[in-house]
């Protein structure tokens, strides 16, 4: 299926619905006084879009808009992830005192726009489209990062993010320009054909790939493209930080996989992928993966600020996710997709607790969590413990299953060193996750520590996320089926 512009629209309505929702929110923002309605409306828009996406999932695959985009299970999977993240973050935002001070209409609009950008990232099959979608996500992210008015940290973070993002995407398009020069095309399948048939200069190709990787890598936050993330995570409004940590990361993975797998490698009959000869990606990624998880975990150890700690933990998790890429086979990719879903659930949950605690105490530092289990409702503390232990990778929680698949993929390919490093990292990570748990449960609150109250909306969301973390830890069969189904690239 290779559709022209008009015919494409028929398969484009998730995006159209989302775009419509964005416009509607802009308009209604002018007339509606009760700002909560805007949030609800945005969620409704997302849900509608989600419905449409799911409907497409059972439909055909193919290229849209003259091969600018592709519609396949892989892209739909990431769209679902992006929508799920958006919905959950909007829901979370209701409970956030920080977000309540913001201009709701603009906040929702920009968040939805970012989600739309992620849609495009997931389905881009053209270097131009890839760049545009990436920038769409980036620019909205810069704005939301600096969205807290007259807030030092927020503005500073935004500036850092902007400069960093600008340089990264600049480097990326510079690299892309070399690819374009070598292949004469922006279209992935033509690039693929040109690269595999011709004799490209390997050094030029390598440099181009490294530059492109800089652009993708800073979205996924792996080393050495990770340094912005702690600052930005700490500075941005917490719900948006949550969004950034899961959705942006996922979209980065999507665009990376699309470019590097169907784009520049070939799928063998046994489910393993073969890169362009002469380009030592596995070794390179192996090192990147190990360094990323180790550096992330080590840096997280000393952190006092929960958001900052979660940022470093996010870097470490990016390292784990990369493990799936290193092995260059279907199991690895599937494990990555699985992990993304699981990570989305548990990380959003953790951020939700951060939001709740910040509401009650105004603190994001670890001492704000002192004796959390003994201050009012114990539910946030218990839920936080579940999320953190899941992030550590302890059974029977979802995080364990995610790691299990990654380890399995790695061991199957006999990358024992990588497995050992990852295992050592899991143990190190326990140290800082458990420190939070310790503070919440083993320490006792002081009189000055405020009580943490739960509103019904937040409680429901917290319950939902914890239950999902537990359920996917025990019965993950359907989720595995979904991810393996989603690992289907449309290339013809």
């Amino acid at each position, binding site marked *: 299926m290779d559709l022209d512009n008009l015919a494409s629209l028929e398969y484009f309505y998730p995006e159209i619905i989302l775009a419509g929702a964005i416009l509607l929110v802009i308009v209604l923002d002018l007339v509606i006084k009760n700002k909560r309605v805007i949030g609800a409306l945005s969620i409704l828009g997302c849900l509608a879009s989600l419905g449409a996406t799911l409907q497409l999932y059972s439909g055909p695959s193919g290229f849209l808009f003259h091969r600018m985009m592709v519609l396949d299970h892989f892209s739909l999977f990431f769209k679902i992830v992006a929508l799920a993240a958006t919905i959950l973050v909007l829901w979370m935002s209701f409970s956030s005192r920080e977000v309540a001070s913001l201009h709701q209409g603009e906040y929702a609009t920009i968040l939805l726009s970012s989600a739309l950008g992620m849609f495009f990232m997931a389905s881009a099959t053209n*270097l*131009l489209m890839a*760049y*545009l979608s990436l*920038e769409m996500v*980036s*620019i909205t992210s*810069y*704005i939301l990062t*600096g969205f807290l008015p*007259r*807030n*030092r*940290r927020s*503005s*500073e*973070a*935004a*500036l*850092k993010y*902007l*400069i960093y993002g*600008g*340089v990264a995407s*600049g*480097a990326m*398009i*510079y690299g*892309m*320009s*070399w690819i*374009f*020069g070598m292949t*004469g*095309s*922006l279209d992935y399948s033509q690039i693929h054909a040109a690269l595999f048939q011709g004799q490209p200069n390997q050094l030029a190709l390598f440099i181009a790939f490294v530059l492109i990787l800089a652009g993708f890598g800073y979205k996924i936050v792996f080393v050495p493209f990770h340094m912005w993330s*702690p*600052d930005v995570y*700490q*500075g941005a409004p917490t719900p948006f930080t949550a969004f950034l940590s899961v959705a942006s990361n996922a979209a980065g993975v999507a665009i990376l996989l699309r470019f590097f797998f169907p784009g520049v490698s070939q799928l063998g009959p046994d489910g393993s992928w073969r890169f362009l000869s002469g380009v030592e990606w596995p070794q390179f990624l192996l090192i990147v993966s190990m360094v990323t998880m180790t550096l992330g975990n080590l*840096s997280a150890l*000393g*952190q006092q600020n929960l958001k*900052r700690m979660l940022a470093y933990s996010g870097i470490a998790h990016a390292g784990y996710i990369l493990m799936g890429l290193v092995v260059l086979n279907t199991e690895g990719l599937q494990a990555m997709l699985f992990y993304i879903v699981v990570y989305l659930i548990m990380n959003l949950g953790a951020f939700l607790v951060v939001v709740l605690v910040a509401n009650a105490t105004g603190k994001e530092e670890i001492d704000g969590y002192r004796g959390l289990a003994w201050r009012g409702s114990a539910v946030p503390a218990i839920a936080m413990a579940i999320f953190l232990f899941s992030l550590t990778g302890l059974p029977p929680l979802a995080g364990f299953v995610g790691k299990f698949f990654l380890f399995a993929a790695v061991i199957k390919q006999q990358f024992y060193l990588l497995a050992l490093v990852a295992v050592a990292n899991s143990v190190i990570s326990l140290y800082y996750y458990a420190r939070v748990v310790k503070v919440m449960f083993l320490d006792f609150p002081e009189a000055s520590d405020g009580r943490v109250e739960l509103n019904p909306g937040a409680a429901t969301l917290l319950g939902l996320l914890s239950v999902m973390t537990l359920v996917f830890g025990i019965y993950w069969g359907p989720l595995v089926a979904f991810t393996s189904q989603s690992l289907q690239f449309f290339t013809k």
Partner: protein
Amino acid sequence: MEITLTHFLVLGAIIFCLGMYTVLSRRNAISVLMGVELILNSANINYVAFAHYSSGGVDGQIYAIFVIMLAAAEAAVGLAIVLAIFQIFHTIDVGATETLKN
């Protein structure tokens, strides 16, 4: 002397490096943003040159146009942020903003 593709590529590379250098060495936020613009434009030169010297198609030119457009968008956002920064910190020295630290 005939102007070949190589000349353009070298020019692009030089501008890329200059942009990089600017970003790295300048402390003034505006200057840094201008460095980013340089990097983007170095890519543009490549695109246009490649498009010119390869057979057919205007993909490169289109790409360059989009880059220019996005550079403007980014600059708009960037300047807005710089303004906000200036309001808070009364400086636009990127080194002076050091709230976020380990």
